[in-house]
């Protein structure tokens, strides 16, 4: 990791200098390769959207319920005791035999014209689409993704729910494109070798779990894009200095993030820490840095303030939509009468074991090895509602490929150890960001598991750090050295493409064959 010298316009990865109308200039400033990578991510996600059966992306049923209610009524779902989903969604789910198929690997998705006719009948008769609104698991989420989806819902010339869902899925595909774009830009700030930017970004674009999630109606996709944008903004600020303009970009990422998914709040301590580091390190241009940080935080405050006002005055609910308040309830075990309080030791050992091998003095919290079973296998592919996966030998084969790549990445880091020392404020900030998210997963995970008996963590919870996934792939290629780095980079892109294709075939096999 060393600083990147400005490449001349028109060089690989750089925009061509050409006279363009002003409104296109900002697009032209984006490297051409980044735009291609983003387009690839969009197309790949669109394929996922087309082949994944409706509602078979995790929690898609409840995200569609929120979105439909918002589109139909202008309100967020917040009616205690109300219907969780509309009659229309319930009817469609029934005709899709959703509850009979989800979790049952032997069951096909719809397979006959007779079933399709029954579904068509429900969609033509259109039972009440606006009588959802009850409090469900997504109710506490902020509304930005749903609001964008509502625009598509309302603008759709097709009125059937399954038809609208497919169109809204393309919004998620656009988010995947944005994520890939920001990953590219993040890598551009990180690595001096332009070819690594393309390798890392395409590895993300074809990552099957990223594509799969981006093929569903799910606010995680906007959350991932905002997180990637935040990391890009911070990386750029650490390298070039924080300015008011860059602060506005970081603030925009923060604003979109907190309005897209409540999980983004876990990134806020790290973001504030990073802004503090940027101000502290800005020796010569502290004024610019202070103004930049102020702009960032002001945008964040405006977003949160506006959201709180809407919640209080229009939607008649708690200031942050019940999100943070619910989290606080969970933290003190309110509403879980009779459940033993969770002490700090349990909390720490649970969180430790989520990511690291259990130490001898720790009580076993899982009965399996989460770094492999949750994070590794989940990243290689657990599709559908975690009911579509490969035989175990595939994951072992993937591990056999992953370990050498890990060694190569470590080698690349070792070779760049002096540069690593130089950028320690950035690395420390990334560590704080990661600690916030990882800690929050541990915090909620132990409570969720204790309350419900179900496992909590899924690999996608770490996808706010897809930029690091891209960086890992780029580092692995760099680790192969000057002679073999580029061919290995190309091989890793091919590997990602094959991985993605096989995952798509797996979904086809599960639901249609």
């Amino acid at each position, binding site marked *: 990791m060393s600083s990147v010298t400005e490449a001349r316009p028109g060089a690989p990865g750089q925009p061509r200098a050409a006279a363009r109308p002003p409104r296109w200039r900002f697009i032209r400033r984006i490297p051409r390769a980044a735009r291609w990578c983003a387009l690839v991510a969009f197309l790949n996600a669109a394929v996922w959207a087309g082949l994944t059966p409706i509602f078979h992306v995790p929690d898609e049923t409840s995200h569609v319920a929120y979105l439909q209610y918002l589109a139909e009524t202008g309100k967020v779902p917040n009616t205690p005791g109300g219907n969780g989903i509309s009659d229309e969604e319930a009817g469609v789910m029934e005709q899709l035999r959703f509850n009979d198929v989800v979790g049952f690997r032997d069951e096909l998705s719809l397979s006959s014209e007779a079933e399709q006719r029954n579904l068509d009948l429900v969609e033509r008769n259109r039972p009440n689409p606006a009588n959802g609104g009850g409090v469900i698991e997504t109710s506490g989420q902020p509304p930005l993704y749903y609001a964008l989806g509502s625009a598509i819902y309302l603008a759709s010339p097709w009125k059937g729910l399954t038809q609208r869902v497919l169109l809204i899925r393309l919004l998620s595909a656009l988010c995947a494109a944005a994520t890939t774009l920001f990953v590219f830009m993040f890598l551009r700030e990180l690595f001096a070798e332009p070819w690594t930017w393309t390798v890392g970004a395409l590895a993300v674009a074809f990552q099957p779990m990223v594509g799969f999630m981006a093929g569903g109606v799910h606010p995680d996709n906007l959350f991932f894009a905002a997180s990637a944008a935040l990391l890009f903004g911070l990386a750029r600020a650490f390298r070039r200095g924080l300015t008011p303009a860059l602060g506005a970009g970081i603030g925009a990422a923060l604003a979109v993030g907190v309005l897209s998914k409540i999980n983004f709040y876990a990134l806020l301590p790290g973001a504030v820490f990073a802004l503090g580091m940027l101000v502290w390190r800005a020796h010569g241009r502290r004024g610019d840095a202070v103004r930049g940080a102020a702009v960032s935080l002001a945008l964040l405050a405006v977003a949160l303030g506006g959201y709180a006002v809407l919640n209080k005055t229009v939607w008649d609910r708690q200031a942050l939509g019940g999100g943070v308040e619910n989290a606080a309830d969970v933290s003190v075990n309110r509403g879980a009468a009779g459940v033993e309080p969770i002490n700090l030791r349990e909390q720490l050992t649970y969180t430790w074991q989520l990511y690291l091998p259990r130490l001898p003095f720790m009580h076993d919290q899982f009965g399996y090895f989460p770094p492999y079973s949750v994070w590794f296998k989940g990243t290689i592919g657990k599709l559908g509602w975690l009911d579509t996966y490969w035989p175990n030998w595939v994951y072992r084969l993937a591990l056999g490929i992953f370990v050498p790549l890990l060694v190569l990445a470590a080698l690349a880091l070792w070779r760049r150890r002096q540069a690593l020392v130089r950028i320690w404020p950035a690395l420390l900030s990334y560590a704080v960001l990661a600690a916030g998210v990882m800690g929050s997963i541990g915090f909620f995970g132990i409570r969720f598991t204790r309350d419900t008996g179900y496992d909590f963590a899924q690999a996608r919870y770490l996808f706010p750090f897809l930029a690091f996934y891209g960086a890992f792939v780029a580092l692995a290629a760099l680790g192969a050295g000057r002679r073999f780095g580029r061919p290995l980079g190309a091989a890793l892109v091919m590997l990602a493409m094959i991985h993605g294709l096989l995952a798509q075939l797996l979904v086809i096999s599960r639901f249609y*064959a």
Partner: protein
Amino acid sequence: MRVRVVIAAGLALVAGVVVVLLLLPAQRRAGSDYVPEFGPAAQLRAGGSHCEHNQLIPGDTGALNLLVGTYGRPTPRIDVTVTAPGQGVVTRGSLPPGHRQGRVIVPVERVDRSVGAADVCIATGPGGRTVLYGEGQSIRLAWLRPGSESRLSFLPTIAHRLGLAKLNPLGSWLILFLALVLAVAWFIALRTVVREVGP
């Protein structure tokens, strides 16, 4: 080693894998009654029978996949008869005795088109008790397509199913359209790799 060589090798690998996958025998699910196998649902004595009513028999059905328990003894003869109002016997078939308990495939005469409101009766021949599995009083009926076929020959069926239950003016051609979109994505990606990573 040049990037183009790596890409060519990768594409050759993909082509090989796809060809192998297409030529291998496929799962041949035709459909089911969506009843999960949670536990014993019916117990038949020798010569007994159990019927499931108002069933949808999917088109292209040629066998019934049943989970049976016989307390360790060989399975008895198993007869399957499907009747529908106004159509009489839609299909029937039987499995000779002597199989190990567990999953058994009872071949039936091919049903070309879906049949609704059918009664499916399963009868056992001489032998011991036979347990059928499902949920509550309902047993799981998992229908299979007849014979053996590769994924390639199964592709039209997959294409038809993939085209259902979504915004899709293309019908069974949707799968081809998606393959085309993916091919475009791959082309752009590989072109970008060649340009940015190296020739």
